[in-house]
């Protein structure tokens, strides 16, 4: 039985911890609260006035700004946000919630957990590497591609919220984001190093795979040199693009075959900094990943011919191209977290289930072809594939395309954010708006939309209202008015697939 020590936080709350270190990070030793609902991480090094002040505003002002608003509870799942600061025997400690249970391995590694990782944290590196996934993880831990899309969506959303508050994470990496591919959840941790631009000097440089080229190039300069580039929102955007690329394609966007210098350190600095080059650059092929050098467990992911980034679809692919070409040299060209969130949400509507039950990825993005097939396992999509193309009216009667489509498959749902242009699936949705309004089903050779909650649904082609509880058969060219409200949408049905 460990001693239990009670403390008061600077914020005035009483907290307690068991006097036994359960884990040590790069800077802190972590102890559990007696009920295990929160932890206290004690900094090993003394914290100066600026660091103390930064911890205080993160726990007070910024916490209140994000969690204190309507819908603030939404963020509890996405951030492990510090709740208070304590001091004990001269050491400064940060109180933070314990990680949710889904972020610990339930099965761990393959072969009856040969590595002994059951119960340990799901650090992102286990999943962002093709080698780790294929060789070590229990298949039940791996999750399908749709869940990786959801993970990326949540990370992008959380980063968008931080950036909206003016905060930069400064060390976004798979180390500081817990993920659960079984449920598609993600949580940003280690938030005590947040950077408020212009106010507190950042102390970290970041984690090698994720550091922006301009930071790498100037890392040798003194910390206060005017030419030195420090972590900020623009460098977070680089890290975010790398994270999303790695979670969807299980390889690093800049680690290719090109050797810049025989010396490993020099080569590392050049390939992540001054001479950073996208492994899938449209014109410069010199940094393509050499498939011949790859370990078998890294295939097919490191084969960019077989698994090009374009398989992520029409919304994400242009963002990757921008982030890893112009964005490497020009931080202003990098897509924002909001750009990523938007593209990921739209991509989720373009996703189709793979017909091959053995396909590990299980889902893929519709590539706008008449006869789509899964890019991961090559299985053709069987049968008819209805696609809803959304239009909405800006002023008056004329409907314009919204550049948004929804793939129809069994048990696909229609939501408010499909029906109304003004809504998007994010923290601002009310509980009522999260309930589906209709669903799709294939019955006796026909695809049907069943109207569950659309009061003004109308088949414009036939001039017939579809009442709640009724259904409508989907056919090529069908025009469905889904809502008469402002921002309400019209869906034009297109039939793709083999039919």
């Amino acid at each position, binding site marked *: 039985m460990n001693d239990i020590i009670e403390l008061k936080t600077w914020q005035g709350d009483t907290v307690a911890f068991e006097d036994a270190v359960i884990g*040590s990070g*790069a800077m802190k030793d972590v102890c559990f609260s007696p009920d295990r609902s929160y932890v206290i991480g004690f900094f*090993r090094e003394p914290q100066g006035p600026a660091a103390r002040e930064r911890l205080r505003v993160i726990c007070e002002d910024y916490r209140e700004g994000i969690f204190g608003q309507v819908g603030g509870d939404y963020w509890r799942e996405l951030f492990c946000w510090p709740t208070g600061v304590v001091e004990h025997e001269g050491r400064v400690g940060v109180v933070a919630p314990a990680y949710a249970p889904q972020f610990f391995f339930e099965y761990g590694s393959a072969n009856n957990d040969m*590595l*002994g*990782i059951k119960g*340990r944290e799901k*650090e992102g*590196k*286990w999943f962002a*590497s093709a*080698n*780790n996934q294929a*060789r*070590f993880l229990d298949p039940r831990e791996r999750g399908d591609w749709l869940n990786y899309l959801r993970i990326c969506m949540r990370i992008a959303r959380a980063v968008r919220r931080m950036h909206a508050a003016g905060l930069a994470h400064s060390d976004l990496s798979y*180390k500081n984001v817990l993920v659960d591919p079984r449920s598609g959840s993600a949580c940003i941790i280690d938030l005590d190093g947040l950077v408020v631009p212009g106010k507190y000097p950042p102390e970290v*440089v970041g*984690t*090698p795979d994720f*550091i922006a080229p301009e930071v*790498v190039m100037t*890392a*040798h300069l003194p910390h206060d040199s005017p030419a030195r580039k420090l972590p900020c929102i623009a460098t977070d955007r680089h890290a975010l693009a790398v994270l999303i690329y790695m979670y969807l394609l299980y390889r690093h966007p800049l680690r290719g*075959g090109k*050797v810049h*210098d*025989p*010396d*490993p*350190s020099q*080569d*590392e*600095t050049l390939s*992540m900094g001054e001479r950073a080059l996208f492994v899938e650059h449209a014109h410069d092929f010199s940094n393509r990943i050499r498939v011949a050098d790859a*370990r078998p467990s*890294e295939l097919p992911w490191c084969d960019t011919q077989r698994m090009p980034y374009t398989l992520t679809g029409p919304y994400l692919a242009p963002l990757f191209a921008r982030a890893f070409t112009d964005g490497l040299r020009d931080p202003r060209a990098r897509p924002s977290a909001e750009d990523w969130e938007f593209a990921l949400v739209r991509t989720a509507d373009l996703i189709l289930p793979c017909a091959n039950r053995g396909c590990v990825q299980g889902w893929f993005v519709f590539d706008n072809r008449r006869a789509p097939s899964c890019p991961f396992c090559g299985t053709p999509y069987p049968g008819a594939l209805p696609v809803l193309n959304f239009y909405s009216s800006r002023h008056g009667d004329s409907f314009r395309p919204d550049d948004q489509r929804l793939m129809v498959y069994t048990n696909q749902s229609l939501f408010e954010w499909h029906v109304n242009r003004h809504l998007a699936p994010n923290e601002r949705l009310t509980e009522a708006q999260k309930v589906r309004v209709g669903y799709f089903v294939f019955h006796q050779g026909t695809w049907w939309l069943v109207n569950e909650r659309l009061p003004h649904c109308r088949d414009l082609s036939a001039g017939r209202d579809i009442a709640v509880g009724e259904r409508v058969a989907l056919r090529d060219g069908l025009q469905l008015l889904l809502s008469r409200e402002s921002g309400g949408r019209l869906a034009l049905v297109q039939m793709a697939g083999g039919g």
Partner: protein
Amino acid sequence: MRRLPVYLVLDTSGSMSGEPIEAVKTGLQTLISALRQDPNALESAYLSVIAFDSGARQVVPLTEVAAFQAPDIQASGTTALGAALTLLAASIERDVVKGSAEQRGDWKPLVFLMTDGAPTDNWQRGKEALDRVKIGTLIACAAGPGAKQDILRQLTESVVSLDTADASTIKAFFQWVSASVAVSSRKLDLTKKDIGGLGDLPPPPPQINVAGV
């Protein structure tokens, strides 16, 4: 994939017999279990063990973490540190991939050397061989009062010591080695030329003294 080669050079002379050698074996087991739970180490760290007593042998060739099997070692004989250093230099020369314009090289190796006594052979000759190969960091551990810290300090600036070579201090040493390998496998230099010695590794636990401080 750039590999991080890690060499463990361990004294298995007669004075290590009993509790110390058993602690080394257990230490190697804990080290490998810990590294197997680290996704970064699994991806890039490669380990080799060189044992030395009256002679030196590479008891485990450079092996990836997932395939590493802890060797069975016994303590006997004298302390041929020179032979160990010569063999270490030859192993590095042979195993570590050198970078070229066409080929990506490995990281410069991380070496942990542990000894509990005074060298009984010409250790300077071993040092000369070692000076000819590139090493990222060499950490020398003087285990117990019999180790010659002054000699170790001529090999490297990074010398740590254990007051006694018993089970608990040796265990602590191996735990620190595993934390150091884990950190090095995910966080290699950017601001510095190489892994810069003790300062870039996790702080050693209290049982391990940083010599000269």
